[in-house]
């Protein structure tokens, strides 16, 4: 049985997101593994948007190659339905159908809303749908979803009609979908939706002889599942690590994490602050942390740029904070709703002076949760900023996870903070000030006091300072303080290497000849490509890297030593992670080839497969939309 790759397409504001989420949940409840991928424009209303839901009885962890079921609702907010295709943005009404055809696999199913996309519209758009359907063995089922919704409820319920039609065409039980509707709605709205769902289901059964083979797979979970996005997992990791203060300013895609925590923190005795700009947002996190609270902030590229100076202040004053950087395509405003991994160098090095920060890039929902927790733990233990990098892809993608995965003990420990009794015993300067920044602190982090604690007075300063915090330009003190602060990264590397579980993920046979190196959100797509390559007789393994600062030298070195050649896969134009790897390791240049993509779409597994062929055979074609950069000296 093939896996289902269902794409629901419409306009922004058509409710595509919530419909797809419920559909994914219904599939999860039916015992399947699910994965969603969101594609949307930077607009409130209109513009082509889609969500892809992939489901299978076997684990799914990324987008598939193309997709096999299109539910094209048509863009009900289109501004220019009568103007043909020669306007700047083209005919928007038809886009949910027209723009998805290129990716639809052979034998795929199309349902479109002929209530909106009538014959005339189709003709004017010159889609040539019939001929293409024949050529690709597509099975097309036009249905008047809008008419059905209008007749039995309200027009906005056409999504429900679309789901009903989908279920009928896939031979899928309606029970789970109905349950979810009952959870979310009441009264007349619920009744109308249930009615429309069933009518759509029945009318497909009555009107059509089903000609395609695709059916919903069947599966079974051993335990309770939950459907979770990357942003949710980041937020929940923060909650479980005792974070009760968030300050932020809206910016896509960071807004998801900010919204989730703004909703939950006040209920958990915490504070959420939406402030005037990102400089303030990061500075507030510093102020709250200085006063003893576990605090975080975050943004996307442009807003994160504004955080540069407070980020350096946190490094210099050794104030723990956690920042989230949800990347999107740059430079400048770039493509606000498209993923990219081009902020890596920005995140590692922004702010004046030498960087002294922890940077993690989790690859999936589970890692988002775990590495956010690790970021808090290290930030507070070692008194430095820790940054968690996600991107537009990971932020919004949803996956099912065992509920028991989240059944963990909270840890609100504020790290290296002294009690008043300990402060009394601790070293003080003759002036009476507590020695907050002692040169010889173990592991590099000198325990701190919190304002309001008796006899713990010190000065936190962005200027270089003495152990008690006074501004100083003494060369001896300067070197002692710099060396101590920078040594925290060595201690952290040691701690991470000695931990139970590395943040790096190995995939594929140990003794493989070739390697794929990847970081962050593209990891699981690359892992799927490894399977496809090995099934086709290849000898390939992969390493997904999450620790970007401090860099996992030993682990990556061992991996690269063990392979003949390696393909580094990342979503940017200047091969930033490859550059980082070469800088950190100082060798392997001749082994590191790059496959880059920066067109606003995340990798699909087949692109990685084809890109890999190039390191084996110089004649192999590079997939459209990607770029191959050979290894140094090649």
């Amino acid at each position, binding site marked *: 049985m093939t896996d289902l790759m269902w794409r629901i397409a419409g306009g922004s504001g058509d409710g595509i997101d919530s419909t797809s989420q419920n559909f994914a949940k219904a599939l999860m409840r039916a015992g399947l593994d699910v994965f969603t991928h969101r594609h949307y424009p930077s607009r409130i209303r209109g513009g082509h948007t889609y969500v892809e839901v992939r489901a299978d009885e076997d684990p799914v962890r990324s987008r598939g190659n193309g997709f096999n079921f299109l539910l094209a609702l048509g863009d009900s907010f289109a501004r220019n339905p009568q103007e043909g295709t020669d306007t700047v943005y083209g005919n928007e009404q038809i886009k949910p159908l027209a723009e998805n055809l290129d990716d639809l696999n052979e034998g795929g199913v199309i349902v479109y809303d002929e209530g909106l996309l009538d014959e005339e519209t189709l003709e004017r758009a010159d889609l040539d749908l019939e001929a293409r359907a024949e050529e690709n063995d597509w099975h097309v089922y036009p249905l008047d979803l809008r008419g059905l919704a209008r007749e039995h409820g309200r027009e906005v319920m056409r999504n429900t009609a679309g789901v009903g039609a989908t279920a009928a065409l896939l031979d899928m039980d309606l029970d789970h979908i109905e349950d979810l509707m009952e959870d979310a709605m009441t009264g007349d709205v619920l009744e109308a939706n249930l009615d429309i769902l069933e009518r759509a289901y029945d009318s497909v059964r009555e009107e059509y002889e089903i000609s395609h083979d695709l059916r919903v797979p069947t599966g079974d979970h051993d335990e309770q599942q939950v459907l979770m996005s990357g942003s949710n997992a980041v937020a929940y990791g923060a909650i479980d690590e005792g974070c009760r203060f968030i300050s932020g300013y809206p910016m896509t895609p960071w807004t998801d994490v900010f919204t989730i925590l703004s909703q939950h923190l006040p209920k958990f005795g915490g*504070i959420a*602050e939406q402030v005037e700009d990102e*400089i303030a947002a990061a*500075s507030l996190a510093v*102020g709250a942390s200085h006063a003893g*609270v576990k605090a975080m902030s975050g943004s996307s590229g442009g807003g994160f740029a504004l955080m540069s100076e*407070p980020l350096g*202040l946190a490094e210099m004053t050794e104030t723990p904070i956690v920042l989230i950087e949800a990347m999107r395509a740059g430079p400048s405003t770039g493509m606000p709703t498209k993923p990219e991994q081009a902020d890596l160098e920005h995140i590692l090095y922004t702010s004046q002076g030498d960087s002294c920060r922890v940077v993690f890039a989790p690859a999936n929902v589970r890692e988002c949760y775990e590495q956010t927790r690790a970021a808090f733990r290290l930030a507070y233990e070692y008194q430095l900023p820790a940054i968690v990098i996600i991107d537009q892809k990971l932020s919004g993608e949803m996956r099912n996870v065992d509920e028991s995965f989240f059944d963990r003990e909270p840890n609100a420990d504020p790290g290296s903070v002294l009690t008043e009794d300990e402060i009394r015993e601790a070293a003080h300067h003759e002036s009476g000030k507590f020695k907050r920044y002692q040169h010889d602190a173990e592991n590099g982090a000198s325990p701190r006091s919190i304002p*309001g604690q008796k006899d713990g007075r010190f000065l936190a*300063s962005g200027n270089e300072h003495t152990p008690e915090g006074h501004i100083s330009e003494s060369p001896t003190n300067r070197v002692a303080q710099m060396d101590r602060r920078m040594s925290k990264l060595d201690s952290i590397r040691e701690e991470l290497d000695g931990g139970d579980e590395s943040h790096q993920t190995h995939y594929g046979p140990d003794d493989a000849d070739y390697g794929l190196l990847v970081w962050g959100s593209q990891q699981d797509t690359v892992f799927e490509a490894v399977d496809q390559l090995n099934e086709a007789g290849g000898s390939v393994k992969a390493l997904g890297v999450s620790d970007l600062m401090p860099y996992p030298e030993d682990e990556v070195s061992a991996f690269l030593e063990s392979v003949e050649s390696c393909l580094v896969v990342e979503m940017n134009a200047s091969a930033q992670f490859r550059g980082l790897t070469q800088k950190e390791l100082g060798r392997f240049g001749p082994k590191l080839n790059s496959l880059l993509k920066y067109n606003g779409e995340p990798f699909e597994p087949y692109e990685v497969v084809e890109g890999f062929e190039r390191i084996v055979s110089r004649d192999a074609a590079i997939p459209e939309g990607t770029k191959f950069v050979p290894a140094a000296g090649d």
Partner: protein
Amino acid sequence: MSVFSAIGEEREIDRDEFTPGIEPQATWCPGCGDFGVLKALKQAMPEVGRTPDETLLVTGIGCSGKLSSYFESYGFHSIHGRSLPVARAAKLANPGLEVIAAGGDGDGYGIGGNHFMHTARENHDITYIVFNNEIFGLTKGQTSPTSPKGHKSKTQPHGSAKDPVRPMSLSLASGSSYIARTAAVNPNQAKEILIEAIEHDGFAHVDFLTQCPTWNKDAKQYVPYTDVQDSDEFDFDVTDRREAADAMYDAESRLYEGEVLTGRFYVDEERPSYTEEKQATDEMPEAPLAERYLDEDSEWERSADLLHHHR
């Protein structure tokens, strides 16, 4: 016993406690108005009954930013223009602290102007002292946001074409609930105003005229000064927003004609502080959040309690 035993401690407080045990050599020039702020603040603290251990002084960058080096308390010498966001978050984290922010006119009315406006709008219960010397001192005498129109400096060789910022008017429009202007040359009034500002439950903004004898020689020592509360010429109600606005406008204009008008310009005791507003909508806990982290008996919620939404 509280985990912050310094907070709310009832005892006699000596003003010498606010002088560091070993006083760092001040970087301020002889005759600098900044000494006046330091002195007035040291005098005010015992009067308001707060000790060094329960006071957090957050400063920006500039000569004014050095205040936290010469004043004994918990200190945070932050970055240029950002003392207010650091200070207000510390107050949210622990409302038991006495939080004072300080910076210069470039710091507060220039680079940090956006934070000034928004902190006033939110009406945090903190005190904000702006050392206003109408010049950039530490960087050697450039034109600042409060320099008079036509002010010549190395960066404005033909004279500034800009009207100066009106600090008090801006403050009023933004939402500050206590606004006063005082001068370093008027230590008694300065002390009284700082006491009122610190005791005020809301955002108290003090525009503190601090003469710069090095870089602003041709400007002023801010003498003679007039206390608007003592002057027969001024008879306005400090609780009346419109009357206050007129008085401020007047004072701001006349400063550039050489007339120094000081005193209280606006006082609103009715407006709830930001903490009160947030607590009223259950957006902030009643007990100081910071205490929870040091109290070993605290219970912490888990994300697992939210998972039913995801089933």
